[in-house]
């Protein structure tokens, strides 16, 4: 009975009820979508790691095939993109085969990824194609690629060639995807993300939307109670409306999530700078189901809690009990959360704390809001000089809870936006710190000990040879080095400059060289790096690289373009993630303000009409309505932004304190302006809405 | 006088004068006027009840006349209520 009754009541509730349900459905759909997308984070990372597995094949990899093979994998670069090159030689009829490949290419054969095939077609051979000598016999399938546009090629060689190649390994098997990632740390991140950025605003949104439409709904519930419904029955009827909105929202959110997956795959670049496979953007089924069940349940629970005071009396709220004013204790959860965060960052990485602290901050923000509004209203009352501001101050002081409630969505959204913006700014700064020391046009070929005879084609006039001496020392003449790199003599110069040297020397364990030595006549030490100057054009550099690929297949090469490209890639991730996040934030802010402004106007039509009838000018009334929203909004947004900045500065060490970019402030300002514009929407309507004759008096 | 004064009158269209007189005399002579008004109210209500019962059973022609009487008795009652609430002020003014 109650179910069909509730459904019919919800549907028959008129424009107001339908509008409420539509708004709730919209907010919840967005929330569901975001939750599902957040859940894809772990699978994306996991599949990334899994896809990378076969790249990590070494001689110690467990056997996957009866016969061994010879293997040499190198990450090469072309024009700022990684190109992965694997030289293989089968040592039997059934060698280990990487995923996505039907059979291992034999000598003179090459298997490439589709993207590489396309690239090779469009570039002169001596810059790229020649690095993969042989006939293309097939393409690498999706299983063997990290991303659809990955550049990978497998070159088949003869076993003799491979045995002569420095760095070739004998493998018995391809490295398989191993245990799952260490999820503990990742789960903390994901969970915190979910809690702070999504559940919080959504709950606030739902509880706010639930409370609107007060008068008519209270009459409805009072009538039902009078007819003999228990509190439980009344609550169920109230929740039916929410449940219906929530169920449609869940469906819509799920469909939206499916629709937006390709977009996410396009935007998400995991440090390799390439859009990933759409199939990888998939929330695990169990977790997705949990979300689809939990969100409507959460919405219904919020409704039940939010409506509790109303459903009690069959007389409606004829004698409303005034709530106690907010006390100082409300600030405690916020302070505790910030302290917890500080403790977390500086001292200890407790997993429980890393979830509890952000949640405490979020809850604390919501709890502190009314208190802040109350104090703002007291200050306003003291400073007010005319009747309008005094009235507004008293109204806010009389009910700071609803004053805050109407702006809480916007304030939380601004808080979230500030956190995101500051983190992005931090990323930007740390990314731009990096600068290459190689001079323009110089190609550093890290042969890492390849036999010198084989390097003869690379060594010509002007090439600087750096050797590796005992104890990880680099033997190179500083004056020579100065010709190809921005260094200062004597070496090492970075101990007093603090610069990065990632591209200068790549020693086995990727550590900085332990020291330097001056070359002596004994030139028997193995060659570490060849610095080959070119005329600086990209074509010339790529030709050198192609040459190096064939002469020293195991060598990695760097130019000064590479480091910058990497940095740009990292930046691009944040830069692309930020606009959608800001859009979401603005959406939430605008939605919640619209809801509260419009319904506030509708509910207070009669008092406003009375005020007008008793002599208040329309302009004054408008100013009053605007102030009523603007003052709590300004105060809480300032508070939210302040707390966000505080948090981010806590998370980051003092040397990296940086203000967000201008773009962020513009975005934030735009958000605030948009919020104000929304609250101003009601103003033109006020004239019509509160005209004396348009309000029916009983 | 002792007997006449506290006794409530039957409501009639010309009752006002008698009622008013009784109240004033009661006040002047120091008798409890509020009790008198209460009794009068109850009497009025009783008559209204009888008339209403009759009216509910009567055809329209008769009921219109009964309605007329009822409305007038109701008007009297309104004055009685009004006088009750102003009694102390009224008495002070009369005694003066």
């Amino acid at each position: 009975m109650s179910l069909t009754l509730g459904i019919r009541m919800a549907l028959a509730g008129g424009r107001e009820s339908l509008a409420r349900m539509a708004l709730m459905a919209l907010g919840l759909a967005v929330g569901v979508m975001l939750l599902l997308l957040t859940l894809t984070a772990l699978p994306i990372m996991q599949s990334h790691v899994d896809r990378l597995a076969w790249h990590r094949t070494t001689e110690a990899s467990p056997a996957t095939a009866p016969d061994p093979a010879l293997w040499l994998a190198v990450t090469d670069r072309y024009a700022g993109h990684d190109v992965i090159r694997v030289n293989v030689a089968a040592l039997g009829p059934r060698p280990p085969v990487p995923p996505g490949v039907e059979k291992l290419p034999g000598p003179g054969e090459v298997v490439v990824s589709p993207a590489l095939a396309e690239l090779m077609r469009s570039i002169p051979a001596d810059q790229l194609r020649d690095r993969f000598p042989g006939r293309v016999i097939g393409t690498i399938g999706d299983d063997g690629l990290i991303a659809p546009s990955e550049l990978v090629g497998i070159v088949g060689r003869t076993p003799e060639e491979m045995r002569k190649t420095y760095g070739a390994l004998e493998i018995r098997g391809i490295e398989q995807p191993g245990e799952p990632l260490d999820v503990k740390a990742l789960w903390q991140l994901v969970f915190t993300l979910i809690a702070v950025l999504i559940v919080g605003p959504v709950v606030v949104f739902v509880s706010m939307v639930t409370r609107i439409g007060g008068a008519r709904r209270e009459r409805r519930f009072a009538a039902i109670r009078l007819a003999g419904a228990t509190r439980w029955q009344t609550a169920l009827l109230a929740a039916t409306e929410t449940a219906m909105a929530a169920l449609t929202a869940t469906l819509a959110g799920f469909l939206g999530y499916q629709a937006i997956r390709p977009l996410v795959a396009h935007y998400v670049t995991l440090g390799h700078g390439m859009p990933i496979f759409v199939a990888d953007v998939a929330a695990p089924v169990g977790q997705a189901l949990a979300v689809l069940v939990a969100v409507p349940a959460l919405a219904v629970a919020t409704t039940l809690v939010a409506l509790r005071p109303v459903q009690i009396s069959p007389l409606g709220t004829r004698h409303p009990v005034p709530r106690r004013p907010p006390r100082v204790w409300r600030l405690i959860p916020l302070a505790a959360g910030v302290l917890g965060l500080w403790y977390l960052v500086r001292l200890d990485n407790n997993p429980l704390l890393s979830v509890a602290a952000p949640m405490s901050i979020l809850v604390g923000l919501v709890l502190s809001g009314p208190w802040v509004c109350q104090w703002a209203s007291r200050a306003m009352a003291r400073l007010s000089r005319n009747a309008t501001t005094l009235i507004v101050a008293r109204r806010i002081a009389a009910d700071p809870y609803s004053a805050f409630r109407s702006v809480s969505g916007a304030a939380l959204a601004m808080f979230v936006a500030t956190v995101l913006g500051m983190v992005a700014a931090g990323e930007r700064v740390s990314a731009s710190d990096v600068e290459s020391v190689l001079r323009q046009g110089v190609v550093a070929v890290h042969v890492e000990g390849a036999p010198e005879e084989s390097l003869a084609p690379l060594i010509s006039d002007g090439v600087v040879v750096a050797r590796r001496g005992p104890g990880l020392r680099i033997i190179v003449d500083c004056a020579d080095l100065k010709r190809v790199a921005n260094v200062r003599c004597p070496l090492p110069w970075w101990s007093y400059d603090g610069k990065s040297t990632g591209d200068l020397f790549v020693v086995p364990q990727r550590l900085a060289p332990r020291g330097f030595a001056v070359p002596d006549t004994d030139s028997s030490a193995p060659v570490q790096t060849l610095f080959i100057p070119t005329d600086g054009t990209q074509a010339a550099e790529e030709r050198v690289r192609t040459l190096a690929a064939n002469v020293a297949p195991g060598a990695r090469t760097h130019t000064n373009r590479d480091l910058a490209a990497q940095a740009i890639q990292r930046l691009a991730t944040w830069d692309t993630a930020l606009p959608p996040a800001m859009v979401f934030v603005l959406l939430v802010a605008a939605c919640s303000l619209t809801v509260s402004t419009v319904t506030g106007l509708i509910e207070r039509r009669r008092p406003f009409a009375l005020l007008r009838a008793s002599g208040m000018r329309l302009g004054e009334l408008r100013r009053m309505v605007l102030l009523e929203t603007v003052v709590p909004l300004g105060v809480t947004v300032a508070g939210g932004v302040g707390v966000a900045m505080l948090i981010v500065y806590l998370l980051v060490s003092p040397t990296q304190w940086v203000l967000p970019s201008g773009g962020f402030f513009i975005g934030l300002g735009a958000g605030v302006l948009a919020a104000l514009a929304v609250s101003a929407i009601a103003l033109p309507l006020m004239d019509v809405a509160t005209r004396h004759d348009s309000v029916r008096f009983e | 006088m002792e007997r006449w004064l506290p006794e409530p009158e039957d409501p009639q269209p010309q009752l006002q004068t008698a009622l008013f007189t009784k109240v004033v005399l009661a006040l002047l002579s120091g008798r409890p006027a509020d009790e008198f008004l209460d009794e009068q109210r109850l009497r009025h209500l009783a008559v209204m009840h009888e008339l209403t019962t009759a009216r509910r059973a009567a055809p329209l022609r008769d009921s219109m006349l009964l309605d007329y009487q009822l409305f007038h008795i109701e008007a009297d009652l309104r004055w009685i209520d009004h006088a009750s609430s102003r009694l102390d002020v009224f008495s002070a003014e009369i005694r003066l």
Partner: protein
Amino acid sequence: MNKVLIGRRLHKSFGQTPALRGADLSVEAGEVLALMGPSGSGKSTLLHCLAGILSPDSGEVVFDGRRVDLMPDRERSRLRRSAFGFVFQFGQLVPELPILENIALPLLLGGTRRRTALAAAEKWLPRLGLESVGARLPGEVSGGQGQRAAIARALIASPRLVFADEPTGSLDSVAADEVMELLVTCAKTQDAGVVLVTHEPRMAAFADRTVTVRDGRVVEAAVLR
């Protein structure tokens, strides 16, 4: 005489304002009792306490030997569904349900199957002259029709008592007479008592007994007919 509802020494204050200061009242089975008094005298509050809608600060309310003021909310809701009926001045019809379902509401809330409840409500329509408006919403019918629907709803579950708080307050005299007539007649037919709060003597005249409430107390003098 059989006293079906008794209220003793009832006190109730709202904040600082006392509304009832020791009111005593008893209702006989099947009688129509009118509570009259000036505004602010506490008559509505007395009605609400007797009906179990409000809890008195002190005193007791006894219905059929059971203490209504001590009952939990679930029990009181059940009373409102089955033993009590209500006709208030405003706002007791659910705006979103058609008249027919509003009438059937107490039965529906009590778990009666929908078809049975609506059939029972159907029977009430002609008795109160509502045949033509069964499918309309409360906002679409006149005040008198709305109050008549409220009467049907109050009586559909065969209650022992009907509580009416200014049922004719917003009606003109003709509609008011109709409503009172229907209320009293239908209640008598079902042997249900009526406790009526009104400030209009013409409406109180429909009652068997009138009691005056003043300053939160029931004035002793009552007229028995």
